[in-house]
């Protein structure tokens, strides 16, 4: 099973990302997914977590993910070294930041600049999904493209798909 934890602040779209990832994975046959937010106060700016579990057999465990394959931060003010504790031995952190982090388990991407350029908004959830597709074998860019088309309103397709592709190329460098 692949387990992904999403960290964001209310309004940044962490749960939407968790759900989109699940939807992208579910496009393949014989796949099973659970995607859910942390169940706590939901308000703009408050830290929230969301979870995606992906497997090729039914998933019974609905509890929150304790150790992740990827822990993804949409907002670097939520990140600290303690985040490494919630990773599996081979797990990695994918962090949206302009800073350079000297740790081989932390992959950084300047998602805010991509968001600024393609969306004109500081919303990086689809951008981090594009980055995830580049650095992992969890989903492909094609699956992601299809999931964005299926689940986002048509007016958001063009911008988001351009942002996803830009992030995919940036993270794949």
């Amino acid at each position, binding site marked *: 099973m692949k387990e992904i934890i999403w960290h964001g602040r209310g309004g940044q779209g962490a749960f939407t990302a968790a*759900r989109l990832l*699940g*939807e992208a994975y*579910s496009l393949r046959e014989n*796949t*099973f*997914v*659970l*995607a*859910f*937010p942390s*169940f706590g106060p939901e308000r703009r700016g408050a830290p929230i977590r969301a979870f995606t579990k992906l497997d090729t057999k*039914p*998933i*019974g*465990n*609905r*509890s*929150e993910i*304790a150790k992740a394959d990827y822990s993804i931060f949409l907002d670097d003010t939520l990140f600290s070294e303690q985040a490494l504790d919630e990773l599996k031995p081979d797990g990695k952190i994918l962090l949206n930041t302009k800073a350079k982090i000297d740790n081989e388990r932390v992959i950084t991407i300047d998602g805010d600049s991509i968001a600024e350029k393609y969306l004109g908004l500081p919303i990086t959830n689809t951008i981090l999904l594009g980055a995830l597709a580049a650095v992992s074998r969890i989903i492909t860019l094609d699956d992601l493209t299809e999931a964005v088309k299926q*689940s986002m309103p048509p007016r958001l397709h063009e911008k988001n798909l351009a942002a996803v592709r830009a992030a995919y190329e940036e993270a794949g460098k």
Partner: protein
Amino acid sequence: MAREFLSGNEAFAYGVRLARPHVISAYPITPQTIVVEKLSEFVEDGSLKSEFIHVESEHSALSCAMGASSVGARAFTATSSQGLLYMAECLPYAAGGRFPIVMMNANRSTALPWNIYGDQRDSLSQLDSGWIQAYAENAQEALDLALMSFYIAEHQKVSTPFMANLDGFVLTHTYEVVDVPTQEQADEFLPPFKTENKMSLSNPKNLGFSAGPDTNTFFKYKEHTGLLHVREVVAEAESKFESIFGRHYTGLTESYKTEDADDILITLGSISGLVRETVDKLREQGEKVGLFRIRYMRPFPNAEIAKAVKNAKAVGVLEKDISFGNEGTVYTNVNSALQKAGISIATSNYIGGLGGKNISPQEIETIFEELKEKRSVVRFLGVEVR
């Protein structure tokens, strides 16, 4: 059949649409809101031909559904927590009137302290209201239960309202892959609602009447036997369901690796998946453990429980409920089933997940570890008072 990525609430709404209710009357409340929103969207876009009535309260929601049912309409409502309690006066009314209304309840904590998250204290507090009570484990079962609930409730031998429970958030708000049947398949499974128990100009009769001391017991006895018929009607419904949709269900309960188990954990609702995975893990380590999932709390599966645990050495009951001053209500019911069957083994009660508290895999393993001690205890998960 179409593969869709849906939340538990959405899956249930899809199931209700397939059942083609004539009337939907509901008042929104977290975490049930999405069901009501989704159904109103279906009515709006024309994919569901149903009268959607926006009522001003849950009390009115069920009153309205009773009115609809009393003229022979298929009626649906949905609620949760405080809404269910506000509706409580109408619950035995609908059951005593034998109106086969279907209601989804999103299991949520009850105030105070205020809390919108999941536990099962709302529905379990209403066990004596005369309603059928079922609990889904996942979104697929939620959709399937939506469709089957009408079949069972409306069956001539039953004619009793049906409360389908989904754990708030953990099930209602979690997205999963769900097979959505076609309308043709659903129509083949679920016949149109027909009843003699209705107001009709061509066949006028008295409904919703008084019954004094001389006849009251008789009506209550009939209400009780109607509920007892649910067992055979569930079997009939699930057999027909499997022949059309290919999915197999196991009646009032589900046994998982209980045959040779020394220690069995009894569960209700969505926590069962985690317990099943824990059973698999412990079995690999040579532990003889099993899971017994209660799918229906009313009628209560006395016989099924006795059969499943008769060779076990200890039984635990894990529930998101506490009857203050006593113990969890599921535990009380389970102990009664064992006592009636002459089974005398250690039984323990684990109260967990109150107000939406996460139950971890480690906690389930600890429960199985404690069951080995063959003691009878009532314990709150996360509260260390020993």
